[in-house]
């Protein structure tokens, strides 16, 4: 199969919300006014680890305009996780809406709702807290030692594998086919590290809690997971799911940070006051008290034969999950499960994973989800091996990457939080992606040119290949509902959450393709727990593959109902009819319009609403593939790295909307380049964040973004809707290893600590001598 016969899918249909957004239409959480709105402010812990001995809110309550002050004494104590994952969440239940203990600088202490932001702020300052300061532990190495401060010493937390050693999650597995490294001619061992990184969605975390005219709680919130928000807020506050409605309006970026359920506190303030309450994090609060990428140390050891066969591979990854174990198990497992299968390992594979509590900001989901950490190690190690055996890095990859029809023992051994599923590769464009990238970057020509350089400015090229998943197999589920209108248009209701990714548009394209109509004949309503059917939400690169599958099934059911009516109108057999150009068309050419079908069903004959719903989940998670190439320049005098060209070739199956797919990848790659060159959260010796602002935490701006070129390599995934796989996350995993490998090619140093700032480059050059 290929996409050439498709009429709406695989076309650059205009993103349906784009014009409204470009015209500044009120679309986001904060763009709606509420009468009598109260403003929430939180008191954040100034200590990395402390117990609240006494908390006095009496002065805070006296501030004019203050309507409520909540401490742990006012709320039910319910251990839960803020990770917005399917139930039961594989993350430990170690979080309380408010607690009598604080576990990092920036942890919640108390919450205020007041008539003005100023009053709320003043009240926060007047809360008196008497802390018993506890010894803090700020790195994973110390946190795992015997006798380290125990961060989760509470008795009622659940599913913490080893609280005494601050282990939030652990997973080990081994595939053994003989003695370790017995066949290896060369053995390599090295470690790579990634620091605290922030998502930097330009819209900060924001939620408004209010009541509808029946007294039900409505959460209008910037979330990726409306249904998980409903469930987890109900759990944390002990209120029934039926009393909560969650609405996700347009959201100003997520990247994983809004897969986190932090809405419990604003809901609690609304329940306490009976009034609408808004909680809007400042940028500083978003940096410190929302979520981050898991900092990681990834040690890899691998063996290779002179002929390029990889004999053994061991990955030991230690993630810092911060004060709470949100996504602690699953990010850790994905760091191996999404990466190790990339290359065939002949004999032995071992994975050792730990996620460790520290008194530091809380890590969570972040685009790439462990694969970013894992591929940095695996792809740099690939180049180390290639260099040693004298093979071109591209050739070495071509020889070893997972091919069509091949599987990996890792797929079955490691899922997300539990055992995975067996699968083989059912589509791959990696061969073509590598070829395209080699041509575009002019690999051979530049390798030759850069082989003999002199002077302080050195250039180099580097490659990295990656894979990811398409949803979580046998975990993620999505559903859709469609109904037909008189003019032959349709309402499509989906639980899926469009984060700006364009999922509303691509889901409409899928439905339109099935129904033989234009995408703009579909009116999409998404992400409202009262109106739209269930969807796990936007994460794990699932929406195109899983939600798209649900929409396709739904549209097919609607198509069958249309044909049923059309057969009566046209007096034809159903099997002779098809939908095309907004009509039901018979084999002999007679036709009736969809409008006629709708009117017939609604008003004349066997009256009924043409409507259908369907759900979809998958038994496999077909990986998208990428080959990335970087052409870099290193100033060996200053240590500055400049990226001259970056080429990213993407196999995402059929790109439902090539323009939006390119945009997803451009953004992911630039985010990855930003990680590579500049991003890092910095902390004082007591765990206080030092650079929680866009001024001090540097993300790439337009002027310092290097040229990035995305190329879509079309393939056809038989299990995906119209051949589609995922596209949104994978691109973020390439820049760290591709640039590190290019820097090695340029000047012979291996950079293994992100970001690659000039001081690290100079230190490595000095060490090399």
């Amino acid at each position, binding site marked *: 199969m290929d996409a050439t016969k498709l009429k709406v899918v695989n076309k650059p249909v205009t993103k349906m919300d784009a014009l409204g957004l470009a015209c500044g239409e009120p679309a986001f959480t904060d763009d709606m006014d509420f009468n009598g709105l109260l403003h929430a402010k939180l008191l954040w812990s100034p200590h990395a680890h402390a117990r609240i001995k006494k908390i006095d809110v009496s002065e805070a309550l006296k501030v004019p305009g203050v309507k409520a002050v909540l401490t742990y004494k006012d709320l039910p104590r319910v251990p839960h996780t803020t990770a917005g994952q399917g139930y039961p969440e594989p993350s430990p239940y170690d979080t309380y809406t408010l607690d009598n203990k604080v576990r990092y600088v920036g942890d919640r202490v108390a919450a205020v709702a007041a008539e003005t932001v100023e009053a709320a702020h003043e009240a926060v300052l007047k809360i008196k807290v008497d802390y018993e300061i506890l010894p803090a532990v700020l790195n994973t190495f110390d946190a795992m030692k015997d006798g380290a401060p125990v961060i989760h010493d509470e008795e009622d937390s659940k599913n913490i594998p080893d609280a005494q050693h601050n282990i939030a999650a652990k997973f080990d597995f081994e595939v053994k086919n003989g003695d370790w490294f017995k066949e290896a001619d060369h053995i390599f061992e090295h470690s790579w590290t990634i620091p605290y990184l922030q998502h930097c969605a330009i819209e900060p975390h924001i939620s408004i809690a209010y009541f509808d005219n029946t007294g039900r709680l409505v959460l209008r919130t910037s979330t990726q997971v409306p249904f998980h928000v409903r469930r987890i807020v109900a759990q944390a506050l002990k209120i029934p799911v039926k009393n909560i409605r969650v609405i996700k309006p347009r959201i*100003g970026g997520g990247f994983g940070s809004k897969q986190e359920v932090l809405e419990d506190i604003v809901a609690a303030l609304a329940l306490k006051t009976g009034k609408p309450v808004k909680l809007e994090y400042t*940028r500083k609060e978003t940096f410190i008290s929302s979520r981050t990428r898991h900092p990681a140390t990834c040690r890899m050891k691998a063996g290779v034969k002179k002929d390029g066969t990889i004999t053994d591979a061991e990955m030991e990854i230690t993630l810092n999950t911060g004060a709470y174990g949100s996504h602690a198990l699953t990010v850790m497992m994905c760091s191996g499960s999404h990466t190790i299968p990339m290359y065939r390992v002949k004999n032995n594979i071992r994975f050792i994973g730990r996620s460790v509590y520290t008194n530091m900001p809380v890590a969570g989901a972040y685009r790439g989800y462990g694969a970013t950490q894992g591929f940095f190690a695996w792809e740099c190690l690939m180049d180390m091996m290639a260099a040693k055996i004298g093979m071109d890095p591209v050739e070495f990859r071509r020889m070893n990457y997972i091919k069509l029809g091949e599987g990996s023992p890792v797929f079955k051994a490691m899922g997300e939080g539990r055992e995975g599923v067996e699968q083989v590769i059912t589509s791959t464009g990696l061969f073509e992606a590598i070829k395209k990238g080699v041509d575009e970057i002019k690999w051979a020509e530049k390798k030759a040119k850069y082989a003999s350089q002199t002077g302080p400015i050195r250039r180099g090229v580097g490659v990295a290949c990656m894979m990811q998943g398409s949803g979580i197999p046998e975990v993620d589920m999505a559903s859709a509902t469609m109904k037909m209108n008189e003019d032959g248009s349709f309402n499509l209701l989906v639980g899926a959450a469009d984060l700006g990714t364009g999922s509303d548009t691509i889901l409409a394209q899928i439905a339109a393709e099935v129904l033989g109509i234009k995408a703009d004949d579909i009116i999409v309503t998404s992400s409202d727990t009262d109106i739209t059917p269930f969807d796990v939400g936007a994460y794990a690169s699932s929406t195109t593959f899983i939600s798209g599958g649900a929409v396709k099934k739904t549209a097919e059911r609607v198509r069958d109902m249309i044909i049923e009516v059309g057969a009566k109108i046209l007096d034809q057999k159903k099997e002779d009819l098809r939908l095309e150009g907004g009509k039901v068309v018979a084999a002999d050419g007679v036709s009736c319009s969809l409008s006629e079908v709708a009117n017939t069903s609604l008003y004349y004959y066997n009256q009924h609403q043409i409507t259908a719903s369907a759900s979809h989940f998958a038994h496999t998670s077909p990986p998208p593939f990428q080959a990335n190439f970087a052409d870099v320049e290193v100033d060996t005098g200053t240590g500055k790295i400049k990226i001259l060209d970056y080429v990213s070739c993407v196999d995402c199956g059929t790109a439902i909307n090539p323009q939006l797919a390119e945009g997803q990848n451009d*953004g992911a790659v630039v985010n990855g380049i930003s990680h590579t060159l500049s991003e890092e959260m910095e902390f004082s010796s007591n765990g206080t964040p030092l650079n929680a602002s866009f001024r001090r935490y540097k993300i790439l701006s*337009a002027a310092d973004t290097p040229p990035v070129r995305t190329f879509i390599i079309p393939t056809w995934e038989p299990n995906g809707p119209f051949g589609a796989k995922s596209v949104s996350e994978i691109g973020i995993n390439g820049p760290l290893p591709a640039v590190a490998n290019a820097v090695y090619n340029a000047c012979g140093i291996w950079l293994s600590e992100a970001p690659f700032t000039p001081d690290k480059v100079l230190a490595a050059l000095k060490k090399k001598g």
Partner: protein
Amino acid sequence: MNNKNMIEAKKGFFEITLTVNGEPLELAVKNGEFLLDALRRHGWKSVKKGCDTGDCGSCTVLLDGKPVLGCLVPAVTAHGRAVTTIEGLGTVRKPHALQEAFVAAGAVQCGFCIPGMILSSKALLDAVPAPTEAEIRKALDGNLCRCTGYVKQVEAVKNAAKKLAGKRRA
């Protein structure tokens, strides 16, 4: 434009006279209030708050045609001056060439940074009708975007420049 002095209308509020998107108005702004908050409070929700510290550019508006950061400009600064927000550039029914170009290029993902980015682009094209890529990137440098990598936004500004040049010739 009216240059009469500002009057403290009621305690803590000043009446300022200005035009917003060409319409002459009197607005009550709070003592110490920034333009971003004043505009949002009066209903111009397109002016976004991404950082409130002058770093992200989401609150960019044009003050007498020049881009300024609404979160750093006291609202009273707008007294006697002309403010343009994205609502004043074009509408869904009648979009500006820049808005159309951003949509056509696929430059709008989450859309949160887009009003500010388009207004920065507008100021650029008013001053430099045929900018180079470097000039475009410099003009957009104060508008952070995490979704797009700026690739399609730069393309959109180039396309809009061409289209506007065509209109001027016609």
